[in-house]
């Protein structure tokens, strides 16, 4: 006999149990039948993780095959995307932040941004991790599911400052560069991109193509599969060979020393840039990882502007270096001959109500055309300028390579300024300026502006009667140089200019660049600088009769070209002709450091 109370309780108990079991079975049913496909996918995804493998960037070598920029590997510590949920970081992430003593809010904000923008699989918690940090992760791997140490190529510039402006540097992509189309070849968060110089100009060639692989992982996110499945192969970047020679670049830097200066040397036969150095420079290795605040302050606060690439960005008046151009314009337009003698120099020239001074206050007396170049007589050129039309002078300058961008490497290259009638009309208004500007233009002052690389081209074209092509920074992969347009000057006039420039070095203002065994042709210049001491110019080519090399030096705020720039050129030329391939004391590659978060 069963008691009545027990029958009621039995009913309640049964009902509760059956309801509970129905909830369980119903829930299991939903998971296993309608949502089966979803969980099936999840199960597969669990085991396979997609890794993006960055391509190693192409090497950059000097003309002799010496490596100037290569790649090392640095380690990033990454956490899975899911570690930063909508409601905040998970316990693993919090633990890591505490361990490594990272600034909590900054770090989380940085990761949040990565998560928003990135396409990649993981978030980079610590970029360029130190050995102790890596060891800490590897030791505790089991307790840190999903946390990985990922190797990533890092660019290394073996000669640091020496090529800072020519090679430039790489840095992390910014938002504008990021790929938003999902194209597998696009840039992703954390990718490196060339920011300056050759790195930027040849980005497409150097970067290669990243690949994608599937790896089997275990529960804590460690890779366990022996062989990854490659969905896309990694294609390494192409190597690039520069025209620059490490040895000659080094000599250029040595010759310039601590001056704020810039030197460019071209092979006159091919237009290849043998050396191009701007000082002060910076260590590009600092730029490949987030730079520390102190280092950044030191660099950006330097009044001599280390980031300023004087080779192509700085513009100066060409000053007396322009006089051969004025001469050639006069000769080509028949307003003067190579042996003409103009009014004597008494220390200047009166034009209208203004007296234009010659640099030599006591005057040069009677000088012929040749002596005018050799002694750099301003008075002679004031008179010559007045015989010319402004556009005739401008055309002569342009034919020699001035007034336009002449490289295809530097995005921020300045084009300088070769003013003509139209320019002055636009600047001052039609009829609001006088032929007086011709006096200034004739001696390379006034509104004329040139870059050092343009002056190097001009020098080379004077040396080869215009056969030197535009500057070539990269010799491999080879790009056929456009043959320059023929110069509108007679060959005899060109030869006369070269002889005059030879005399400048042997007897005139350029004696400091004289070599014992090789004759050098050159021209000094002193660019007026309204902001301070004048800039010292020197251009030259050698050997004078069979030119191989042309170079230009400008030393800022130094004074006269004859005393300040010519010796620098002489020192470099000596090294160039000493013995190209057996130069003692080549620089050894620098050790790369510079570590950041």
């Amino acid at each position, binding site marked *: *006999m*069963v*008691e009545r*109370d*027990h*029958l009621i*309780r*039995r009913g*309640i*108990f*049964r009902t509760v*149990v*059956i309801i*509970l*079991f129905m*909830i*369980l*079975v119903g*829930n*299991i*049913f939903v*998971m*296993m*039948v309608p*949502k*089966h496909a*979803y*969980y*099936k996918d*999840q*199960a*597969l995804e*669990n*085991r396979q993780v997609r890794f993006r493998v960055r391509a190693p960037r192409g090497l950059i070598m000097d003309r002799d095959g010496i490596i100037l920029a290569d790649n090392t590997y640095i380690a990033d510590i990454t956490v*899975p995307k*899911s*570690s930063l*949920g*909508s*409601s*905040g970081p*998970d*316990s*693993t992430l919090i633990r890591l932040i505490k361990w490594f003593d990272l600034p909590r809010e900054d770090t989380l904000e940085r990761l949040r941004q990565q998560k928003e923008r990135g396409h990649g699989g993981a978030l980079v918690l610590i970029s360029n991790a130190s050995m102790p940090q890596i060891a800490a992760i590897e030791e505790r791997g089991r307790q840190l*599911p*999903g946390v990985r140490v990922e190797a990533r190529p890092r660019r290394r510039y073996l000669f640091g400052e020496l090529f800072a402006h020519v090679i430039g540097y790489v840095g992390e992509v910014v938002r504008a560069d990021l790929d938003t189309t999902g194209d597998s070849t696009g840039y992703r968060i954390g990718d490196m991109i060339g920011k300056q110089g050759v790195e930027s100009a040849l980005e497409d060639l150097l970067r290669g193509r990243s690949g994608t692989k599937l790896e*089997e*992982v*275990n*529960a804590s*996110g460690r890779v*366990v*599969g*022996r*062989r990854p499945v490659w969905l896309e192969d990694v294609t390494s970047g192409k190597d690039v060979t520069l025209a620059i020679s490490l040895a000659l670049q080094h000599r250029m830097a040595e010759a310039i020393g601590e001056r704020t200066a810039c030197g460019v040397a071209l092979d006159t036969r091919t237009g290849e840039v043998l050396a191009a150095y701007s000082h002060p420079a910076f260590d590009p290795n600092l730029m490949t990882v987030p730079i520390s605040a102190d280092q950044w302050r030191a660099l950006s606060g330097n009044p001599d502007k280390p980031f300023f690439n004087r080779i192509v960005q700085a513009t100066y008046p060409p000053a007396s270096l322009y006089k051969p151009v004025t001469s050639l314009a006069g000769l080509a337009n028949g307003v003067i001959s190579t042996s003409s003698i103009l009014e004597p120099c008494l220390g200047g020239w009166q034009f209208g109500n203004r007296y234009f001074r010659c640099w030599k206050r006591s005057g040069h007396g009677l000088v012929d055309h040749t002596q005018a170049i050799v002694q750099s007589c301003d008075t002679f050129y004031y008179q010559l300028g007045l015989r010319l039309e402004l556009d005739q002078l401008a055309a002569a300058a342009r034919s020699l390579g001035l007034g336009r961008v002449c490289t295809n490497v530097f995005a921020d290259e300045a084009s300088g300024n070769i003013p003509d009638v139209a320019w002055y009309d636009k600047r001052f208004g039609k009829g609001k300026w006088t032929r007086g500007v011709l006096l200034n233009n004739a001696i390379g002052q006034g509104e004329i502006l040139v870059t050092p690389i343009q002056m190097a081209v001009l020098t080379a074209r004077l040396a080869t009667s215009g056969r030197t092509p535009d500057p070539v920074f990269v010799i491999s992969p080879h790009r056929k140089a456009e043959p320059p347009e023929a110069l509108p000057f007679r060959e005899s006039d060109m030869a006369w200019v070269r002889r005059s420039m030879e005399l400048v070095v042997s007897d005139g203002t350029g004696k400091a660049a004289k070599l014992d065994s090789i004759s050098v042709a050159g021209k000094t210049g002193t660019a007026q600088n309204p902001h301070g001491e004048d800039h010292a110019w020197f251009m030259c080519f050698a050997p004078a009769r069979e030119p191989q090399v042309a170079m230009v030096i400008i030393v800022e705020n130094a004074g006269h070209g004859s005393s300040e720039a010519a010796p620098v050129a002489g020192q470099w030329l000596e090294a160039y002709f000493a013995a190209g391939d057996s130069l003692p004391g080549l620089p050894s590659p620098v050790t790369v450091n510079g570590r950041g978060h």
Partner: protein
Amino acid sequence: MSYLSFFFPRGDRWIFLAWVLLCLISLAVLWSVTEPIHGPYNQLDPGVAKGVFYRQVFWTVIGYGALLLASKVPLRYLDNVAIPLFLFTVFLLAFILLVGPRIGGARRWLVIGPIHLQPSELAKVTFILVTANILGRAVDEGRGILAALVSFLVMAVPMFLVLREPDLGTSLVFLAIWVGMVFWFGFPGTLLLGAGSAALSAVIMFYSESVAREAWPWGLYVLLILVVLYFIRLSILSKVMLLAINIGFGIGIPFFWEKLQGYQQERILTFFDPSRDAFGSGYQAIQSKVAIGSGGLFGTHYLQGTQKGLAFLPERHTDFIFSVVGEELGFFGAVVLLGLFLTIILRGIDYGASARRPFGRFVAVGVVTYFTFHVVVNVAITTGLLPVTGLPLPLISYGGSNLLVSSLLLGLLLNVSSRTFEN
């Protein structure tokens, strides 16, 4: 009585059959879990050691012995020794808390040579016996609510000791068994309403506090209680008490929350939002759901489950073994398994009503509540319905103590089933 019957338990044949089938399922699943993984990862992930399977075979044999013994020992004898047995296990629980070895951050084990015993498992058996003793005697002697209070104090001792180990899951088992047995004894409806609504109040306040971060869900609940109290027929005093206990539990929750261990808070928060810690404490819950969901109607092929294969399922041979069942045997396998448990439970409830002596009835209900709580909570955890806490699936999860105690309890149920009014 034939000679063979000596080797078979007495009592309900269906319950015994369910025990046999559940043990076989357990061995089959453990064999699969301990298989090295087929495919290219043999050397890399050998799975769980094969020894786990063989040890479970050994414990199944021992468990059968326990089942046999428990089904045949005279119930009256157990009634008489219930109190000393219970005191002995309480002593053991206190003993390991004081001098037991700390393993994995907890003092749960009594270590005798190579054998690790969990006194808390044994305590489940003696607790059922002692409660059945107290409540049974109260029925015989016609006493009421006082016996229920005494049994509550008796329950509080092992519950508190186990909570200190710490082992939240197991300590809740004592509470659940007590609720089941006292319900059977006859619990005043008002008290039941009070306890139930207070618990609900606490849960809702918790939800308001930690997840919604707004007070209105709990406010709404209190409003609902007021409406219910208005319509219900009760003394004013009872109504005031009910309201007070609801508000008290609700307001008390934030203080209780502060008392919880960090990892416990984390687990509860993660329960409400597993994605907040996909690789931390939410990891087990997510992986377990993935395993079960990927099983489909018929399961991925036995011995070839993908989740267990690369160790995505932690605790896969112990507390989370149900997810392996789901993955490998599919929906039908899981339903069969639950059906076997349901058979034991429903038939057990019958014996709770039809057993000849009150002691036997309460033993039956205690055993049934034990199985109900373990199965429902364990499966709810593995399917993501409850926050993760360590609780094995009876007879299926690997572990000697679990198998031994579950078999012992089923033996007791079989014993009770052989002494009913019907036979």
